[in-house]
């Protein structure tokens, strides 16, 4: 394949062939997801929307990658990753300590359900095929971990004496690597042939097993290479588990919970595996048997870490570019509007707002001290414009609050107290929208627009990087992307996301209609003149009681509209278009908050901060599915 022109366009796990390239592009911050204490004890379930970084994380623990990591541990781009994995006791100076066995579930397991057999037989076939594939992957991993040749060196692999792996099945027990390989290959071939056959399969040829008996082989000290244990630790990793059937997934989870084999088990799956009920209860599934890591939720709780991770990944990708030399991404993204090119515009804005506020407050004694506040005369032109806009919002609030009250002078300190960072953000947003200034620019906002999803972030950053490449080609004098250009590129990406919703998501048209309603509603709430939900509203919330109704079959039978709403919400959550937060306490009630994916926000000039949401009843939301959101008279009067 050709050299990558824009490395941001590569998906780490699938498209990067060389192990060293993979390691150079891997952000060590991803390891924050794993906990040293838990990762070896309970099965870990990594769950996210597509592009959350699950496959890359699992790939990191495969033997060839770990060997490359060890061999390149002195390399600047790999050092930190090596240190972190050394802390996890995965690698040390002698090499890799762990045998990582990766089992992709995007194979034909689900097709077993279509065979005309009874349930028990299908379950046995499933476990049989899974065992064969675990054995095949395990043997390859062993050979790779010790840099041997496959399949020539399989004979050097043996099993601890007394190990019985194929209990209760016909034929002799495999005793060494070659015999295991032959058994597994034959078993897999028979099942695959049966699935892909034009004629009905011969039941007598198909055998299976009762459980994941291959775990026995992965226990420390069971698999031997030249008589010594293959590795100190073993981790069995299942990727794309959402592609199994519901029954298979349930059987697999149940078996791992019961087996307690001593083998570390990691399971990666997308939200799409979850039922409507599970999707609407995302985040509450942690139990004794499993440790569930919801990747997007994890980053939402640790925004700074996500920002650092994405900045690190962006720098790595930028350095990998062949057509442009960019050692670090951040300096190439202008991050303020204080430059000389914006000075004239800022002056114009300042004068206009100043004039407006003075006119509005003329004759009102109570604002006279506020109008003399030092913030209104100090700082850059842009700072002053923002301060005047804050004043305008506060005047609006004060008017709403004290109609009919006495016209006492409001102290200057009062203005300072009320001017917190939230209202400043709101004022900046109001100015941006009123004067069509760029708003979505700079690295922190780029990270926020990633909405806790690595792939989404890479996509956006890739769009911006494309401009750098073009600027290099046409030999622009400066490579730095100005705020206006960044804003334009991000808005285009946002528009594309909106446009693709009907095609990407199940029930796409309804999801689009619903999200569009949420967006319009949020916009109206955000830009109320007194900015009551500073810096803005970017989500809605339903009470946990209403959420329980959406999970109640009986309730849904008598309220089919709410059933449809539940399905639309689930489809939007599964595609990471809505970001759920459960059990959010507000006004003495528990809420399920549904924030818009941040990349949906630019269409409606919404801020990227979280926290602003409005509570809604199911009836109203269900009506948005049919008629869309309509401005109420009450809201209209406020606008």
């Amino acid at each position: 394949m050709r050299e990558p022109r824009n490395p941001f366009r590569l998906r780490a796990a699938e498209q990067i062939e060389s192990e060293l390239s993979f390691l150079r592009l891997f952000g060590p911050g991803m390891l924050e997801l794993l906990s040293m204490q838990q990762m070896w004890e309970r099965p870990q379930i990594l769950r996210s929307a597509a592009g959350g970084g699950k496959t890359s994380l699992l790939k990191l623990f495969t033997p060839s990658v770990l060997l490359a990591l060890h061999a390149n541990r002195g390399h600047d781009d790999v050092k930190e990753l090596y240190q972190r994995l050394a802390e996890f006791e995965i690698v040390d100076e002698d090499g890799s300590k762990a045998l990582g066995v990766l089992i992709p579930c995007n194979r034909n397991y689900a097709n077993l359900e279509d065979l005309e057999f009874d349930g028990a037989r299908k379950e046995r076939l499933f476990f049989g095929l899974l065992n064969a594939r675990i054995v095949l992957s395990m043997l390859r991993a062993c050979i790779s971990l010790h840099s041997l040749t496959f399949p020539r060196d399989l004979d050097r692999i043996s099993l601890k004496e007394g190990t019985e792996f194929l209990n209760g099945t016909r034929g002799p027990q495999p005793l060494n690597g070659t015999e295991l390989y032959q058994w597994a290959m034959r078993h897999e071939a028979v099942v695959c042939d049966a699935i892909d056959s034009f004629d009905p399969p011969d039941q007598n040829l198909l055998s299976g097993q009762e459980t994941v008996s291959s775990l026995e082989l992965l226990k420390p000290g069971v698999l031997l290479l030249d008589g010594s244990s293959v590795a100190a630790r073993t981790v069995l990793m299942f990727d794309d588990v959402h592609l199994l059937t519901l029954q298979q997934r349930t059987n697999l989870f149940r078996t791992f919970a019961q087996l307690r084999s001593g083998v570390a088990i990691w399971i990666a799956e997308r939200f799409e595996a979850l039922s409507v009920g599970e999707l609407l209860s995302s985040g509450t599934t942690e139990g004794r048997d499993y440790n569930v890591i919801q990747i997007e939720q994890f980053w939402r709780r640790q925004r700074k870490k996500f920002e650092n991770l994405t900045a690190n990944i962006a720098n790595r990708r930028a350095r990998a570019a062949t057509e442009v030399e960019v050692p670090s991404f951040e300096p190439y993204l202008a991050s303020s509007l204080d430059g000389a090119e914006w000075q004239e515009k800022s002056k114009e804005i300042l004068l206009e707002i100043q004039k407006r506020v003075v006119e509005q407050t003329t004759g009102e004694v109570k604002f006279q001290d506020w109008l003399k506040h030092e913030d209104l005369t100090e700082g850059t032109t842009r700072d002053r414009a923002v301060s005047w806009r804050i004043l305008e919002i506060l005047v609006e609030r004060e008017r709403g609050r004290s109609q009919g009250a006495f016209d006492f002078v409001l102290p200057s300190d009062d203005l300072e107290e009320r001017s917190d960072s939230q209202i400043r953000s709101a004022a900046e947003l109001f100015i941006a929208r009123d004067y069509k200034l760029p708003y979505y620019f700079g690295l922190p906002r780029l990270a926020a627009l990633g909405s806790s999803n690595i792939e989404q972030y890479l996509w956006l950053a890739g769009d911006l990087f494309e401009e750098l490449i073009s600027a290099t080609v046409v030999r622009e004098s400066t490579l730095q992307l100005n705020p206006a250009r960044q804003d334009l590129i991000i808005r285009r990406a946002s528009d594309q996301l909106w446009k693709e919703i009907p095609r990407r998501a199940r029930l796409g048209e309804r999801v689009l209609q619903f999200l569009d309603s949420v967006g319009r509603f949020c916009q109206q709430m955000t830009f109320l003149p007194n900015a009551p939900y500073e810096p803005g509203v970017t989500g809605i919330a339903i009470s946990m009681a209403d959420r329980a109704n959406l999970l109640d079959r009986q309730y849904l039978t008598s309220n089919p509209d709410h059933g449809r709403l539940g399905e639309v919400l689930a489809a939007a959550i599964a595609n990471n278009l809505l970001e759920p937060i459960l059990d959010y306490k507000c006004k003495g009630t528990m809420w399920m908050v549904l924030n818009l994916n941040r990349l949906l926000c630019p269409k409606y000039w919404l801020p990227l901060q979280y926290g602003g949401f409005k509570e809604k009843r199911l009836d109203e939301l269900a009506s948005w599915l049919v008629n869309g959101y309509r401005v109420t008279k009450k809201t209209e009067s406020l606008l």
Partner: protein
Amino acid sequence: MSSVARWSNYVLAAGEDLNSLLRLHCASAERNICVILGQGFDPRMNIGLRSILEAGGTGRRHLILLQFDEGASSPSRFYENAIKQNLADLEKLRNGVCTTESKTVKMWGTDGRRISSHSAANLFSSAKDFADFSDVFLDISALPRSIFYPLLAKLLYLQEKNSREGKHFNLFALVAESPEMDGQIIEEGVDESGDYVHLFRGGTDRTSSTGEPKVWIPILGERQRIQLERLYELVTPQEICPILPSPALNPRRGDDLIIEYRELLFDRLRVEPRNILFASERNPFEVYRQVRKTILHYQKALGPLGGCHPVVSSVSTKLLSTGALLAAYELKQANLAVGIAHIETHGYRIENEQALIEMATRSTLFGLWLSGDCYV
């Protein structure tokens, strides 16, 4: 396998040529004809049947109508009226002329999993199903790929089985093509993941051959970026050989597709420009030849290293998709497993329902005589 392609000589006719062929064929002997077609909102649904019935001739005429159980939430349900209209037209056509039976294709399993391709392959299980017929026509105009791929493959298989028993029937595929209509029918709610078509999983599933490189041959069509991305995620190939429709009625069509997918093909998937193949947009047998030749070339070149896993996908017209299927079928029967990667959608949206009916009248019916008398 034989160095001579099974369809190196073929019978393909379109428009008035096809009508003449059908008239001659039907008049040549008493023919018991079975027509299989899908029930849907697409106004091209009845075009094939009409041509066959208008061709005249004697013998039994039998219709097997495939109905799709898509579930209550399918966006296609918005077009119930169009389906009713098509059924009313069908009723007029077949009235007193042909017998009819219906078969249901279950699209979803009880656990919410797609099973359409498996259901389609199991619609007919035995060569006896067609023992009474001299000719079987499968009209794929209103059938999604996930249905007609396994169905057509199964019919080819049963036809061969019948032939071995000395009772062969002629197998035809019909498809009414209209690029302007295809442009009006927008796929909605693309599945989150692609999958291999039942019977054509190829060798890609086998862990025992994990190390063998995968060669992916996607046949490109317009507005399919999401589908292509998701198919790529499924296949994760080492080599990609896209097929562009050229020559085409619109001579710039191939260029337009390259512009549409420039970023995906060259930046993300890093396709080598020299890997791009071309095939006429109106000749599925040319696609068949290109796919077959490419797969055999890669097998030969990579043979010393253990071979490769070829996978084909079509996000283009049904006519061209048929060519990909024929290549995959022939190679599968020669023990060279070829995967067909496919991604489905939850439904379709019609841009302009009224315009669609008018456009249907301008579509061209293609007929592919796939096996039977002319190949003996």
